[in-house]
């Protein structure tokens, strides 16, 4: 893999991580702490929204964030042909073709 190829993979990786960390900050520190008092003006069922974000919503958000990260990185790895399972398989197939 060439250096420029590796560098552009890394930059794309940083973009994904950066975006997701911004969302991470907004749902936890933003909605759960800094804006919680304001969000308490709204309600979902028996929950005030700020309280719900702080004690429930942010945690669900974290779970979703990690799975979005896995999905995005899978896509990126495939694009740069760095996905290990497929790559190993492709190499094995290629080796078999050479032998046969």
């Amino acid at each position, binding site marked *: 893999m060439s250096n420029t190829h590796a560098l552009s993979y890394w930059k794309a990786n940083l973009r994904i991580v950066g975006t997701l960390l911004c969302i991470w900050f907004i749902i936890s520190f933003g909605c759960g702490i800094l804006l919680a008092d304001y969000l308490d003006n709204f309600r979902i069922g028996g929950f005030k929204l700020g309280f719900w974000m702080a*004690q429930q919503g942010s945690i669900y958000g974290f779970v979703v964030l*990690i799975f979005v*990260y*896995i999905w995005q990185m899978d896509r990126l790895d495939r694009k740069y042909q760095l996905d290990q*399972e497929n790559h190993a398989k492709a190499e094995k197939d290629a080796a078999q073709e050479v032998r046969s």
Partner: protein
Amino acid sequence: MSVQIWTYLFIFLSFGLYIAIALWSKAGSTHDFYVAGGGVKPVVNGMATAADWMSAASFISMAGLISFLGRDGTYYLMGWTGGYVLLALLLAPYLRKFGKFTVPAFIGDRYYSQSARLAAVFCAIVVSFVYVCGQMQGAGIVFSRFLEVDITTGVIIGMAIVFFYAVLGGMKGITYTQVAQYCVLIFAYMVPAVFISLMMTGNPVPQLGFGSELTPEYGGGYLLDRLDGLSETLGFGTYTAGQKSTQDVFFITAALMFGTAGLPHVIIRFFTVPSVRAARVSAGYALVFIAVLYTTAPAIAAFSKTNLMNTVNNAEYTAMPGWFTTWERTGLIAFNDKNSDGRIQYVGDAATNELTVNRDIMVLANPEIARLPNWVVALVAAGALAAALSTAAGLLLVISTSISHDLLKRSLAPHITEKQELTYARIAIFVAVLIAGYFGINPPGFVAEVVAFAFGLAAASFFPAIVLGIFYTRMNRQGAVAGMLSGFTFTAAYIIYFKFISPELSTAQHWWFGISPEGIGTMGTLVNLAVALLVCRFTPAPPQDVQEIVHNIRLPGEHV
């Protein structure tokens, strides 16, 4: 059947299971012992990580802490889950690609320095010891309260079990017992929660139940509104509103998040999976399994607080149900009839309040307070023990690998064979169990205080050093060591000053920027980052081969 017989039955069954797993998964090599052979499936690793992470404190104390803190309790919930996002996005995949056994190994190799490696060994051992003492103590408390054996016997039984599977199986034994322990602990946590939610709100899902309306028997209306009303009337302040300053909650949350991501016993779990992708996926699973308990805890907090206030306030002391006297005997509840009217006044004002309630009661006595069947009450003991033992085992492994691998093999005695290294690892774990057991039986008074230490120090030392090591190629030895030292010293000094030297000054007006010692780890992290970046600017770049390591860990797969 009585609660005691049920308790014996559950503990006997669960311990039998752990021992059977230990016998089945004996470690044959250091690779097995340190990283379970490196072939653990992501789901399995996720479950083991969850059990590793959720300690006696998460199981026994957290819901109680939240029920007394109200919305401010959020910092435990977000801090101890949000850290997994950092772990998944910033650390786990890269450390897995690096592919060594321990955190000190990464620090030592990345910063091409034996002293950095030794400093990391020291930090890892201190942090893990602090933690493991708390687990042993937790196990002792559960044994003594549920089985009415004394704490010493309880701790020794716990030690014997951990010793058996950790020494025999190393990481391999620990991984598979942790999976079993996760199942036990989550079942034990969820069953009472579901029961209580059904009873009070008619909704079987506790996460939804505490936002629902109470059943007519409980007086109807939204549960949280009732809780707010009761809390305000009794002078405790509104439950769903924050009482602490926003910046303090902010800093504590951040410190717990950075600390979570920097704790060595959590990080090493990601060395056990087969690939970089598996490391990412298992971080996702780990958080799912953790979130089950962490989203239930605030529900338990709200249910039990409402229940407690409803049951005790202004009630006749002599008419109290059986659980009240049982827990009074253990000293977790204390009633002092200040105005001698024979009734319990449970109010926010310290001068007239007559009831002191230990926070642990919210989980331990919750099933009894809600009059659940005996087998549910007994489950809690087995669950709490699973939580304590699984975390203790993970921590003991960090101590043992730090000694046998980083201290001996990589530093003091590089010529030992693999077989000798394995023997030393087993000896180290044996000694660590004994010391931890000793502190479990004779707990130093400062255990609760030092937990703030463990997170603050992990946040201020490991987290920035590892992140910079991955994301900043130019970061060199001088910068990293200076950063770790200043972050560590700054955080330790602040905590020691307010916790040990002048605890009477530990109030908001004396704290810097209103940040409590629990939250100072965040400042320590920033100090570490600032010093590291500054020193790095004026010192030479790291050698070419180290820069190659950094380029290599950024790419998944075996190329480059």
